[in-house]
């Protein structure tokens, strides 16, 4: 098949090599993407997918190698040149100006002349045809900030098509979508393929690859390790290719805890207003029991982040009550006398923050310094005023051993560790004391598969040992793999709390978009 030259290739990347300093990000990459297909690119974080696509889109220049579009060698030195060559990109974080309308966003940089009114009229006509032929409904006069994410994404695609993109790159497009919105997106992608557009889909969700692509390229450690026809491969094979060994995608959860186990954390009528006075949490009530993992699902930005921060003492709520039943004591906090962040760990709680690099570790600290963040007052680590580097090192080595953190080099700068290992370090740190309550935010965001497996197993182990775990995740797969119960949030309110075993992705997807609590 591959020898068949009658197939036209939309993109050929031949011997692409890119170095950053001493790091080889792309090593002699060979990738051929047939015209009019949906082509998946998978790989762990740091495998070089983003670098490669950035080279195709003109953000970086390759050190070596050649790019051919439609068989012709091209030089792409900037995104402007990429667009001129018919390459469009939809970034993971949308590149839209929120206070402008959809039409204005599309015209931005493609005004075609001095007079806006004329350009607008001309554009609208063309956009209407584009929307019809590609089934991409977008309200052109709506402000972007008033659009749901799904529509914003359609707008991004429309923007690329308006610039006459024949090759469309989508970087992790489903991260912010509900399952229903994702299914809609895939329909659109199939439509685009039918119209002859070549789609490159970068993702780490293997199910999506299986569902929608024609061919798939697997990358690992800066190299292409396999190229397959999707129909000839399986999720399991792709996962194995990605990390170089077989992986368990499902973790054995074991039995569900008894319903009458102790309530470790109870929240009543919790409300939070942000600095602008917008109510982000609208009167939440729930309980978290010993020996269970309660998942908090929802499209990101619906109050999960705020809930976690309030429970960790990082934000003060405007109303509500929190009961902590840890270390054999009942503690009660209300909005006036909220739990101080400095006391959280003293009360037997652990907190794995959502934003690992922003809160969980210090990039410029050594691994061992990051390993005691939040514990610098521990008596065991030194004297009354001083810290003993030797004892910090010993503790770090214990954490490294417990969670198989790599490399075993406590003096390494935290920023030079991979995301997965940073995360393992944070979770190891927060779990080292067997906390009775563990708050966990996005434990596997930006983490490679091997580390995910490890983190899942450790979380289940902690649960079985009696920890009460609150897990915030935007990955439905993760919610299903780990939790006993799921609490779904939308617009700052709880829209439902369900037993994981008795729910489907569709049920939860429905709750994610539901307006007000039914339960």
């Amino acid at each position, binding site marked *: 098949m591959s020898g068949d030259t009658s197939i036209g290739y939309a993109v050929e990347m031949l011997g692409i090599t890119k170095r950053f300093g001493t790091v080889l990000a792309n090593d002699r990459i060979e990738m051929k993407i047939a015209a009019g297909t949906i082509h998946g690119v998978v790989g762990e974080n740091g495998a070089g997918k983003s670098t490669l696509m950035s080279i195709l889109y003109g953000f970086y220049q390759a050190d070596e190698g050649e790019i051919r579009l439609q068989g012709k060698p091209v030089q792409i030195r900037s995104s402007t040149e990429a667009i001129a060559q018919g390459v469009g990109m939809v970034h993971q974080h949308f590149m839209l100006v929120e206070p402008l309308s959809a039409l204005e966003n599309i015209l931005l940089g493609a005004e075609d002349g001095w007079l806006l009114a004329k350009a607008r009229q001309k554009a609208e006509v063309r956009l209407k045809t584009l929307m019809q032929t590609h089934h991409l409904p977008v309200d052109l006069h709506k402000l972007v900030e008033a659009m749901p994410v799904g529509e914003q994404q359609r707008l991004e695609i429309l923007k690329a098509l308006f610039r006459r993109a024949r090759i469309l790159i989508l970087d992790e497009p489903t991260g912010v979508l509900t399952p229903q919105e994702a299914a809609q997106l895939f329909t659109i992608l199939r439509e685009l393929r039918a119209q002859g557009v070549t789609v490159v889909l970068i993702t780490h969700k293997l199910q999506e690859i299986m569902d929608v692509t024609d061919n798939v390229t697997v990358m690992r*450690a800066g190299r292409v390790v*396999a190229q*397959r*026809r999707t129909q000839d491969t399986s999720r399991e094979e792709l996962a194995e290719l990605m990390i170089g060994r077989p992986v368990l995608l499902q973790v054995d959860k074991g039995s569900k805890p008894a319903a009458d186990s102790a309530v470790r954390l109870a929240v009543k009528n919790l409300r939070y207003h942000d600095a602008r006075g917008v109510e982000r949490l609208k009167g939440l009530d729930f309980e978290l029991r010993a020996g269970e993992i309660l998942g908090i699902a929802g499209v990101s930005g619906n109050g999960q982040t705020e809930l976690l921060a309030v429970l960790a003492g990082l934000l003060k709520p405007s109303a509500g009550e929190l009961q902590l039943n840890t270390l054999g004591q009942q503690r009660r906090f209300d909005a006036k006398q909220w739990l101080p962040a400095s006391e959280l760990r003293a009360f037997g709680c652990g907190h794995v923050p959502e934003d690992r690099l922003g809160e969980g570790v*210090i*990039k410029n*600290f050594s691994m061992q310094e990051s390993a005691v963040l*939040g514990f610098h*007052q521990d008596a065991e680590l030194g004297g009354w005023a001083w810290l003993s580097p030797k004892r910090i090192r010993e503790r770090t080595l214990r954490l490294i051993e417990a969670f198989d953190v790599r490399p075993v080099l406590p003096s390494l700068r935290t920023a030079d560790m991979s995301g997965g290992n940073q995360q393992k370090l944070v979770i190891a740190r927060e779990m080292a004391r067997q906390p009775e309550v563990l708050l966990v935010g996005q434990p596997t965001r930006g983490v490679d598969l091997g580390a995910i497996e490890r983190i899942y197993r450790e979380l289940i182990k902690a649960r079985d040992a009696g920890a009460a775990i609150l897990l915030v995740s935007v990955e439905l797969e993760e919610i299903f793999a780990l939790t006993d119960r799921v609490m779904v949030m939308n617009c700052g309110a709880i829209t439902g709390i369900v037993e994981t075993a008795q729910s489907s992705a569709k049920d939860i997807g429905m709750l994610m978009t539901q307006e007000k609590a039914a339960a």
Partner: protein
Amino acid sequence: MSEAASSLPAPVPKPKPITNKMPWWMNGLAIPGVQLLLALAVASLVVLGVGESPFATLKVMLVGALDPQAGLSSTLYYATSLIFTGLAVTVAFHAGLFNIGGEGQAYVAGLGVALACLWLDGTLSAPLMFLVAVFTAMLFGAAWALLPGYLQARRGAHVVVTTIMFNYIAAGLLNYMLANVIRSQEGMAIETRPFKEAALLPKAQPWLQSMGIEVGPSYLNLSLLVALICVGLVWWLLWYTRLGYALRTYGQNPRAAKYAGMSAATMIVTAMLISGALAGLMAVNDVYGAQGRLVLNYTGGMGFLGIAVALMGRNHPLGVLASALLFGALYQGSTDLQLEFPRISPELILVIQGLVVFFAAALDRLVRDPMERWYLQRQLKRAAR
């Protein structure tokens, strides 16, 4: 497709992490050395433009600054003040704060030392008076940094702005106090009366002479030892104490500090207090140790120069020590320059200082990037072999 898959390169093990970290001799010696040479090269052009020989002037400066029989002890005296003010900037910097108020903090500390000495120099012996001077200098310096720290912690008023304003307030306050309250009744100069000899420690020169070491006369005094102790203490504080850990955490990432349960307000105020106390110690070197009285504008810009010292020293206590010696030598070397070369005005030294700051701090990357690239290329070549 299957042939294509098999012709692809075989899976490789993950490469072991290569860091772009530079060894100590690159950061500590090679890079600042080249930056200093560049600064001197450009300064030589200025000297040439004035019509003097760069080599002759450099020689005069070096001899003037480093001859143990003559200028070396003055170099060390200036370096002492710069160590204090440089460390002050360093401590604040590690907590993410830019304390530009060293000048004012040192000036107010001078007032504290003068008040203590004027009050107690009849009753206390020299060693006790010295301890009181150290204590009051730290107290007054810290007090002058407290309010800017508090304003940032509670009201969000940036310390860069408030400390600059506090420099002006300090200058005004001191001018008033010196002119109207504590001015000596004798003489024309705006200064306090000299403190009593019995309360002052002898300078370094007679001590060293009694040990058989011949040095030139200078203001050098015991404060140099205090400064060296402070270098060690600041190092210890920043990297070996719980407080230092918290300060650095806050300086690196305030959100992570909050996550770790540290209070931002406490961190800001504590860092400013320590910083102010260090800057204040300059008064021990100058007001108590050297002059034996408080004179108008005694700080003479040493507080500001501390910023350059900290920048050049890359905010490391040892770096501060080295760059304080360098700037001390430049300062001292320039005095001889004026005597030997009438065509060179005292402002030339400001040009050289400016060039050093320019190349070492402002244009740091100009030298650092190519040198780091060169080093990495060399490593890569070595690894390939």
